[in-house]
């Protein structure tokens, strides 16, 4: 027997915690199309990682490779330090909650939860007690005898979670299981996932296209686009310090103003020129900073812009633009204004007003002023 190859990084840092999953230079080709390109990251034990990206970004392919349903075209995946490319799914210690849940319709809730224990030939006498314990964990105590179709959507979610966790897998994978739920239930289940994950401390990888879900549930977020990892960071850093224009645009509502770089300072200050307008900002991506004379765009989030009827109210802000309201969108907790600004060729800037009751309401066609601080504008090349 050959000694299984151990990943050198298995005990490496990120807070000195043991690494549960290592994805190293993993690629996946389908008929010459690169679904996943050279993906690498480490996931320490007990953490909740979300792979976030639009459809077709390769996030599900990456998850399916970790689960063992697909074999990487290149690179290697390590679980607890062992290379797993040659290990079939049923020999990996992975619990998975599927997109359409994949509960067995011919079994009861309890039989579904008992299934992985039976398949792993656990002692039959301990199974009922354990099944009941995990049903209780997902708050379904007493529902074991129900058939799957007798349960509501949320209850089915809970059965799927219990089934994926009952055999104490090393890793829990969530393949967008919440995508089909209505918003209220989805938000409830997001918190439920987080609660259960913290209670058991199981290492978890979640896949979603829902930025809110990623921000709410995760310890870390990996943002993917076109098969490539764009950024791996904690939710707050992903949101506040996006590494490139894609991440800035995909998460939150961001306005981009394109221009030419006039100057770049040592301290990270950048100024860009757009027509007669000079915009001050900060370097967004230190690895790939904008170059003097090159093209770049300044990114400013809709909630970081202030809106006022006259310029004097915005005098403390670094950048002030005049514009005209062309549309107002009422979203309940906030009002979204679309403002066309003459200084940037009537491009539309979106602005959030979080307190519609206290502020003056602006109407379509009204002249307004927009203002923001230079430190809130990130400049990407």
């Amino acid at each position, binding site marked *: 027997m050959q000694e299984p190859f151990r990943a050198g990084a298995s005990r490496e840092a990120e807070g000195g915690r043991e690494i549960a999953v290592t994805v190293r230079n993993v690629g996946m080709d389908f008929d010459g199309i690169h679904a996943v390109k050279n993906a690498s990251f480490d996931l320490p034990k007990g953490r909740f990682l979300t792979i976030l990206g639009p459809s077709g970004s390769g996030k599900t392919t990456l998850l399916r490779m970790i689960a063992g349903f697909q074999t990487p075209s290149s690179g290697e995946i390590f679980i607890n330090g062992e290379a797993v490319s040659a290990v079939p799914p049923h020999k990996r210690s992975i*619990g998975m909650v599927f997109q359409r849940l994949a509960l067995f319709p011919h079994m009861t809730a309890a039989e579904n939860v008992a299934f992985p224990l039976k398949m792993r030939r656990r002692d039959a006498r301990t199974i009922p007690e354990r099944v009941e314990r995990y049903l209780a964990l997902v708050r379904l105590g007493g529902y074991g005898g129900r058939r799957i179709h007798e349960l509501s959507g949320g209850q089915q979610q809970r059965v799927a979670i219990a089934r994926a966790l009952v055999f104490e897998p090393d890793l829990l994978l969530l393949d967008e299981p919440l995508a089909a739920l209505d918003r209220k239930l989805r938000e409830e289940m997001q918190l439920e996932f987080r609660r259960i994950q913290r209670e058991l401390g199981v290492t978890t990888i979640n896949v979603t296209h829902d930025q809110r879900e990623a921000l709410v549930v995760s310890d870390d977020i990996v943002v993917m686009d076109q098969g490539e990892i764009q950024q791996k960071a904690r939710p707050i850093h992903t949101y506040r310090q996006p590494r490139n224009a894609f991440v800035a645009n995909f998460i939150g509502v961001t306005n981009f103003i394109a221009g030419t770089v006039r100057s770049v300072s040592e301290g990270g200050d950048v100024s860009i020129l757009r027509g007669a307008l000079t915009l001050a900002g900060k370097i967004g991506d230190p690895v790939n900073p904008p170059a003097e004379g090159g093209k770049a765009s300044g990114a400013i989030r809709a909630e970081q812009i202030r809106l006022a009827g006259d310029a004097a109210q915005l005098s403390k802000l670094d950048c002030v633009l005049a514009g005209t309201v062309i549309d107002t969108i009422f979203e309940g907790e906030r009002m979204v204004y679309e403002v066309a600004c003459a200084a940037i060729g009537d491009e539309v800037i979106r602005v959030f007003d979080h307190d519609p009751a206290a502020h003056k309401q602006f109407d379509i066609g009204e002249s307004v002023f927009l203002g923001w601080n230079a430190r809130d504008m990130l400049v990407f090349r």
Partner: protein
Amino acid sequence: MRAARTAYPLKWRIMDALEGIAAAIWPARFRRATPYLMLLPAVLLVGLLVLGLIQIADASLRTLDTTTFQFSDDYSIANFRRALTEPLFLVVAQRSLVAALIVTAVTLVFAFPYAYLMVRTRSPRLRKFLLIALFLPFFIGQVVRAYGWLIILGNQGMVNEALGLIGVAPMRLIYNYPAVLFGLVQYMLPFAVLMLAPALTAIPEELEAAAGSLGANWVRTFIHVVLPLARPGFIGAGVVVLTLSLTDFAVPAILGGGSQDFIANAIYDQFFRTSDQGLGATLALMLVALGSILVGLVFALFGAGTLAMGRSRA
């Protein structure tokens, strides 16, 4: 002009005209009767069959006077007594029943992997090939196919010639029970595959992936997930194959060569050889009864499967 044509294509205009004609013939206030009107052909067909059965029941109660070749005017159960006591008929009935059960079991075993591969394969080419191979026998017809087997399996047939090449003496491969069973399985296979395929299509592939991730290898996935969920397909296919085999005529007649008669062959003999329509009618009734009991038994034990149209108890 061109834009207008694509916006309202000729097909729609024709449909409008047809709807206009239909509305003139069958005004909207008759609409509630429409479903019944559409059922009418089917009701007529089944009704005629019932009338025929009544006539057969009448004939079955009249005995043939072998001296005058006249049927008795009064009813008696003599034909039923004969059918139940004469060893020949019992042998025929037993032979048909056992064959139907064996053929059903073997056909389902063979049909399942075929249907599974056809449904699950990722290659559209293979799926097309399997579908064509499945439908080809339908174009050939049962009699011609049975005759083909006579040529292939006969004393001077291809199989015996091939056996001769490796030094095996010619064997009698036709005109016996196994030959009939073989011919029936071969005939029933496409029916079973066609009944199983939709049931397998209805099983989400994700369930098999889930079973894998939960620790089941393919054998246990098959036993615990695929087989139980394919049950409706098995029941539907089983009932069809069972009834078709039980009542088959051509395969036992041709591949059995007269020595392996099934119930249908015995009925044929009574009607067209000995001209005892009374006894023929009796045997026909008993075949209907046997078939009904078998199907009823299957439904009672396992539910109606795909034939329940998704309204099963499960």
